[in-house]
């Protein structure tokens, strides 16, 4: 009875099959590699098209027709450039944005970023629930029913779901943005004109037009998304070797985000603008106005898109915010912990949802909240982008992966342009009458 006897027998069994199995494993491995990386970029960019975003695009289309379409290409570049820096930082350092701010800029800077971030994000959460309320009104559901159910849904999603499950749900939500493409096709737009206006800039210098332009930028590039994006790549444990896939994810995300914006603007331009309904100020009115112009299905798909976008963002924002704050300040965070292990995390998360939904139930001035949230984003964005630029150029953190000169120029131009535009937006929102941005 020796071991060699058995080993010899085993030797005969193993000879076959080895090579085929190897090849099957290799293929499976490549596929999982790709699937392992995609997600954060796609999700983040699409969440940008949230309730506030859709309202702004609706206005852009109904007030100015196709005239603002040209801005989508430079905006895509700006979105990609800023998001790519965060993705790269997440992959190279393996740390979240709030972690890096804490380690490199100390406690007080972090605390400041976290507190302001909390309130800006809270305003955004309110806006998302306002979006839920507006969308459900089109389907004839009272907000006192719709909003509490939505809040509960969002809350349970996090408590019961794992990161992977939640991500799959989010990726499915991304797919639902297709409804806007359907709405746009039903609206029978002038595709040739739309295409022409996309590539040839038409710049007007009347103040309303400029405000609209600023609003578009402000709503598309939101400050909280950088934290979420970076954390997403850290959580997925993307390694430097997989970085090309991660970058592709960010690129596809940025482009798909702008494609949806394109279709929303085209849809409203083809209907509301063409028929002279140029004072539509929000997505709900837009959906209502679509009914007689492009049929009830155009209205329903439009409203469904709004509901999807609002729920989607309402799920991500409170979670991301609670995570970022706890990580930066050193409290236990994450849904893998029990309530007693991470009380601050769960309290923050719950508070954001309860206040977010509560404000929507208590007031009828939902679109004022929307403006407030966008102004908040606008003021906050340049601060976050400057932190990112300072960090991404640190050799001791990033090694050979710091920005190249060209990239730095593009990034700083983007940052400064955003600062100028958002200062302008903030100024007009605060000091001009009416609702300039949506």
């Amino acid at each position, binding site marked *: *009875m020796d071991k060699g*006897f*058995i080993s010899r*027998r*085993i030797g005969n*069994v*193993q000879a076959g*099959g*080895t090579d085929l*199995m*190897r090849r099957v*494993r*290799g293929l499976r*491995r490549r596929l999982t590699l790709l699937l*392992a990386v995609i997600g954060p970029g796609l999700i983040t960019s699409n969440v940008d098209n949230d309730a506030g975003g859709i309202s702004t695009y609706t206005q852009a289309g109904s007030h100015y027709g196709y005239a603002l379409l040209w801005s989508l290409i430079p905006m895509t570049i700006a979105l990609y450039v800023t998001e790519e820096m965060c993705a790269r930082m997440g992959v190279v*350092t*393996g*740390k979240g944005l709030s972690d890096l701010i*804490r*380690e490199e800029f*100390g*406690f*007080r800077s*972090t*605390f400041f970023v976290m507190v302001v971030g909390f309130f800006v994000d809270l305003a955004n959460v309110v806006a998302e629930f306002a979006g839920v309320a507006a969308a459900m009104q089109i389907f004839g559901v009272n907000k006192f029913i719709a909003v509490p159910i939505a809040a509960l849904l969002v809350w349970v999603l996090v408590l019961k779901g794992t990161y992977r499950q939640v991500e799959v749900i989010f990726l499915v939500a991304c797919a639902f943005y297709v409804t806007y493409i359907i709405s746009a096709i039903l609206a029978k737009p002038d595709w040739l004109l739309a295409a022409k206006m996309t590539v040839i800039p038409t710049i007007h210098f009347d103040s309303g037009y400029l405000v609209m332009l600023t609003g578009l930028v402000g709503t598309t590039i939101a400050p909280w998304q950088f934290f979420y994006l970076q954390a997403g790549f*850290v959580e997925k*444990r993307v*390694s*430097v*070797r997989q970085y090309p896939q991660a970058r592709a994810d960010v690129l596809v995300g940025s482009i798909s985000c702008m494609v949806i914006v394109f279709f929303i603007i085209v849809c409203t331009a083809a209907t509301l603008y063409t028929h002279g309904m140029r004072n539509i100020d929000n997505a709900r009115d837009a959906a209502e106005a679509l009914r007689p112009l492009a049929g009830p299905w155009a209205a329903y798909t439009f409203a469904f898109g709004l509901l999807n976008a609002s729920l989607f963002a309402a799920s991500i924002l409170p979670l991301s915010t609670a995570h970022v704050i706890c990580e930066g*300040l*050193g409290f236990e965070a994450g849904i893998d912990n029990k309530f007693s292990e991470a009380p601050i995390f769960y309290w923050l998360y719950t508070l954001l949802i309860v206040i977010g939904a509560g404000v929507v139930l208590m007031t009828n001035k939902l679109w004022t909240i929307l403006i407030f949230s966008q102004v908040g984003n606008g003021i906050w964005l340049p601060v976050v982008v400057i932190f990112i630029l300072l960090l991404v150029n640190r050799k001791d953190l990033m090694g050979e992966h710091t920005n190249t000169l060209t990239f730095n120029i593009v990034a700083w131009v983007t940052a400064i342009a955003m600062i100028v535009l958002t200062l302008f937006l903030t100024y007009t929102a605060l000091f001009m009458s009416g609702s300039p941005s949506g």
Partner: protein
Amino acid sequence: MLYATELMGSTAHDSDGHYIGRVREFFIEPAEQPNRVSHYLISRGRYRPLLAHYDQVASIEPGKLNLNVREQALQPYQPNENLLAVSKDLLDQQIIDTSGRKVVRVNDVDLVEQHSNGNIELRLSQVDVGIPGAVRRLLQGIASPAVVRKLQSRLPHSTIRWEFVNLIEPDPMRRVKLRITHEKLENLHPADLAEMMEMLSAAERQGIIASLDEETAAEVLAELDQRLTTQIVERMDPGRAADIIEEMDPDAAADLLADLPKETSEGLLHEMPGKEAAEVRELLSFDPATAGGMMNTEFLFMGESLTRDEALAWIRKQDLNIEQMDTIVLINLEAEYSGSVPVARLLLAAPEQRMSELKTEPLISVKVTDREGDVFELFDKYNLRMLTVVNDQDHPIGAIAVDDVVSRLLKK
């Protein structure tokens, strides 16, 4: 008790009472004394900063540091790799709390004074990772120190004694110079260590694995998230990686190698000793979703005709881990599987009792090609702790342990 952040920014005066500058950093020289503040960095605006040695300091209190020498006696500051900087390397950074088995972030560093002849020494007593430290950092310079102290005394404390603090330093050169060892980590359970490592960045994980002994490293790798394991191994020196994989159970090693690019895994197998490499290669040839993909080729087996005493003598000669000794696989004269005996039964058996009399009924085994679902069912139905895997000729070629079944089920 003094706090590092309270003392940072204090004005420094020499023995003549002349103002020199402000204290900006504390250094520790771990090679000399692991918890003593050995040097104070005094910055002087646009002039070169000075370094005060601990025996040149007469007194220190929040806002004020007095030297017992004149300014001329101080050395100009030069970067020194052997010094650990409290503010730069410790404050706001993540550390491992080896007593609480957690990764935490440092809010402040607590110091105690020790008077000796004519000077004062500061010793690191603990790091603050709780709310009091956070509140102090926030309110410093805004509220008066007395108010801050009163406020923080009412808050729940959360501190870690300095001897339980394990710094995380990815740079191996620096780790040696600063005497950062991971001996304390080696005493933790590998599963705890793996969980903590998942909270760190890639470079930090790499640094920890690099300084663990091979056996611990192997155990930790087996517990880590599979994606992290492959990343770590790919970035490691192939020789060291092979040494670690060699220490792993063959089934865990095969799982790891299966996820690596072919060139890397071939290279690693090449570095491993022939016997271990052959075992792992064999396991790699099976589909992971079958019994063959789950089994371990190292198991305890013997002839069914052995007596208990002979069996014990045989077991003692084997080089096996405790986990692999749970159940004995019996074979007949044709080397076919003929039964299994839980090792615990040997305790109750008579010395001359034959193994064939001790075996468990009924005779259960799986074929290498059987699906993992069948394996789960057998474990559930017969409450197994170990299941024998046989080939087409009914020869036992491996064994599946219950812990592998549990972790597979959890992943689903």
